[in-house]
């Protein structure tokens, strides 16, 4: 049977999709967390800068014809409280520089109320600036007092590094959790499929009952068609077996009737010629009947080989049962059948096929062995497996034909007069090989044939 062509894996596709989604989300989470945190950090820095600038602005007063700014120590020291920062400030009365760093850039587009912020570069470092202003009454009227405070970004950079690390951690953690969840999801999604596979593959070859286990909605059509397929297969198998049985019956019953009639007539007549003719007739009928039987046997074997069952079979018991079964016939032919070896050997196989094969083999041996001869069956352990060797004291096989004996319908050339066909051995060979075994045929020096079947242990 051909293995199905696998194209992609649902589990892998599901897993990859989930992981790709998770990776994208993780990156998004990373950037969102970072940008939000960045904004928060920026805002908190701006707030501190604004507070500083406002405290300077608030401390300004006009007195004695000049602007006095007695700003608190904390106005600048607060900017340095968490991390060491360089701090710059400027105090301007409109465009006139009063104090601080006169090179400090001004903030563009200042709104009258509330602080304004900008980023700039000052004295070789990136700084963040806050700018505040208010009107102050002077002798020359209302004038605009402006205060700018700037701060280097050491602390903010540290914060951002920390934030970056944290958001990286959050993103990575998110991704890891997603990986775990994805694995679990993929597994639980595939599980019904696995369960179905297990329940179907656990079945014996003859078990064609519909799948009854609960399944997810998506799998209903698949399982429904599987069930319908199995139902059709079941019906078809039943029909096949019935057909074979029916065929056997239909072919052989009339033959048996004709044979019986011929035999009766033969008994009743005294005419020697008629008797001889009838005897030939009986032979021909026997031949046909046996061939038909074997053809049907072969059909049955071929049919069963497609779904071989694997049960534990005791070779010893199989041999003994088959010989026992044939004993009336062997006695009738004055053929002595003996079994050698009493060690039991268990193999896995289809008991019905094996019995059929042995029956054909022994039957064949008896057919081709003259009356009064002996057929011995030896059962022995060979390595892991077992060997059944059947030896007779008959004519043996023609040397030239040993190799092709098991071709269908081949028959030993010296067995012309014996009813039967090579099909028996073909059946035996097919069954043995289906069980992983081998059949060997050879002649024994001094007369007789030897057929050995070798079965592996499992």
């Amino acid at each position, binding site marked *: 049977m051909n293995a199905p062509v696998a194209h992609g894996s649902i589990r892998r596709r599901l897993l990859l999709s989930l992981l790709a989604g998770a990776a994208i989300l993780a990156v998004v989470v990373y950037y969102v967390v970072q940008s939000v945190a960045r904004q928060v950090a920026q805002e908190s820095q701006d707030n501190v800068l604004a507070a500083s600038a406002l405290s300077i602005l608030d401390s300004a007063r006009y007195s004695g014809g000049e602007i006095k700014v007695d700003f608190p120590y904390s106005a*600048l*020291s607060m900017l340095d409280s968490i991390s060491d920062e*360089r701090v710059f400030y400027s105090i301007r009365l409109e465009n006139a520089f009063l104090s601080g760093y006169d090179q400090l850039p001004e903030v563009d587009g200042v709104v009258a109320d509330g602080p304004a912020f900008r980023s700039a570069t000052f004295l070789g470092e990136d700084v963040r600036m806050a700018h505040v202003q208010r009107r102050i009454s002077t002798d020359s009227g209302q004038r605009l007092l402006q205060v700018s405070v700037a701060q280097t970004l050491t602390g903010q950079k540290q914060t951002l590094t920390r934030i970056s690390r944290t958001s990286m951690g959050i993103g990575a953690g998110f991704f890891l959790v997603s990986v775990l969840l994805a694995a679990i999801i993929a597994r639980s999604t595939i599980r019904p499929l696995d369960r179905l596979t297990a329940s179907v593959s656990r079945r014996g070859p003859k078990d064609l009952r519909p799948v009854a286990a609960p399944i997810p909605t998506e799998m209903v059509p698949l399982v429904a068609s599987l069930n319908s397929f199995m139902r059709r297969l079941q019906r078809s198998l039943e029909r096949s077996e019935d057909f074979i049985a029916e065929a056997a019956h239909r072919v052989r019953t009339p033959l048996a009737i004709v044979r019986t009639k011929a035999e009766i007539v033969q008994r009743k007549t005294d005419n020697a010629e008629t008797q001889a003719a009838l005897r030939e007739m009986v032979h021909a009928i026997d031949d046909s009947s046996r061939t038909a039987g074997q053809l049907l046997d072969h059909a049955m074997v071929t049919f069963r080989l497609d779904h071989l069952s694997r049960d534990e079979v005791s070779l010893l018991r199989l041999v003994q049962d088959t010989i026992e079964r044939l004993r009336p016939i062997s006695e009738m032919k004055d053929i002595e059948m003996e079994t050698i070896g009493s060690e039991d050997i268990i193999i896995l196989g289809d008991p019905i096929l094996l019995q059929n094969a042995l029956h054909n083999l022994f039957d064949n041996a008896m057919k081709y062995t003259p009356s009064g001869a002996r057929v011995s069956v030896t059962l022995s352990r060979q390595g892991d497996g077992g060997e059944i060797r059947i030896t007779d004291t008959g004519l043996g096989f023609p040397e030239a034909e040993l190799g092709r004996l098991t071709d269908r319908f081949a028959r030993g050339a010296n067995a012309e007069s014996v009813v039967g066909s090579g099909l028996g051995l073909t059946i035996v060979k097919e069954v043995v090989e289906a069980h992983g075994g081998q059949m060997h045929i050879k002649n024994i020096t001094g007369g007789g044939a030897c057929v050995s079947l070798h079965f592996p242990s499992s």
Partner: protein
Amino acid sequence: MRQFALSIVLIFAAGWVAAFEIENRTRFGSSDNGQVLRIISTADIGFFEPMITAFLAKYPNTEIDYVVASSTEMMRAIQDEGHAFDLAISSAMDLQTKLANDGKAQRYISATTQSLPDWAIWNDMLFAFSQEPAAIVVSKKAFGDVPIPKDRHELINLLRQHPDRFRGRVGTYDVRQSGLGYLFATQDTRASETYWRLTEVFGALEARLYCCSSDMIEAVKTGELLIAYNVLGSYAVNREDRSDFEIILPSDFTTVMLRTAMIPHNAPSHELSSTFVDYLLQRSHELDAQPLTHPGLDLIQIETSLNRIRIGPGLLVFLDQLKKRAFLSEWESAILQN
């Protein structure tokens, strides 16, 4: 062992068209490859000589050019005139901070600087290697029967009780002249309102104003002064006649100034200055390190009242000209009552 030292005293440094004023200049060691470490410092060579000698013993083949200048002159040399020094060592924390804040210092990070306590390092630019308390120095002889005050409160009471005894015989920094005096005074005002009360008492007693700690101690020695306020404790401790003085570290709060070193942005021998900074910091911060300038003053004893000046932009506040003007006018009105 005192290392061989070539010491030249110059009033003006040869080779410099120096507009800033040098007080002293000394060279130590010699180098055959022209490796010279130029230090500009506010500290007298006497304080630094042991450290330099030990450094040269460990790193021979090095020449050190040690220039002493006042803190304002140092500011001028570096800020305005752009002279190239490898190391700037100063007791004027505010000016050092201003230099660093204005980008005149370069950042330096090493294992040693990273192991410093937080108060001893700022922005990887300023490194503190010495803590200098501001003390009250009194003449033991003059006090005799009067109990020696332990804090400013007791001092105020004492002065009020004996105005005649102390009139014209108390001294302190002229904060208009002395940067260190200004630093101490401004930090005192931050710590407590007591400073203004004390200054007013000083004004009432016609306090004398001095430019420097050494002059004040000398004045106490000669009997010209009975009490000198906000004197660098180390100056008093290191005197041979130390036993004549009572050095008081006020128990309400003792302002502690930090001497800091920085590597100027234009340092020519950056590697050498790094080595020296590491060496200086290791020596001064190691477990059983002796304070460089005041081996007799134990700061651990006054830990609860220790008011260590924090390096940082806060120091810029009192450098602001408007703020300074406001402070000085208030100070003047307090101390110059007559």
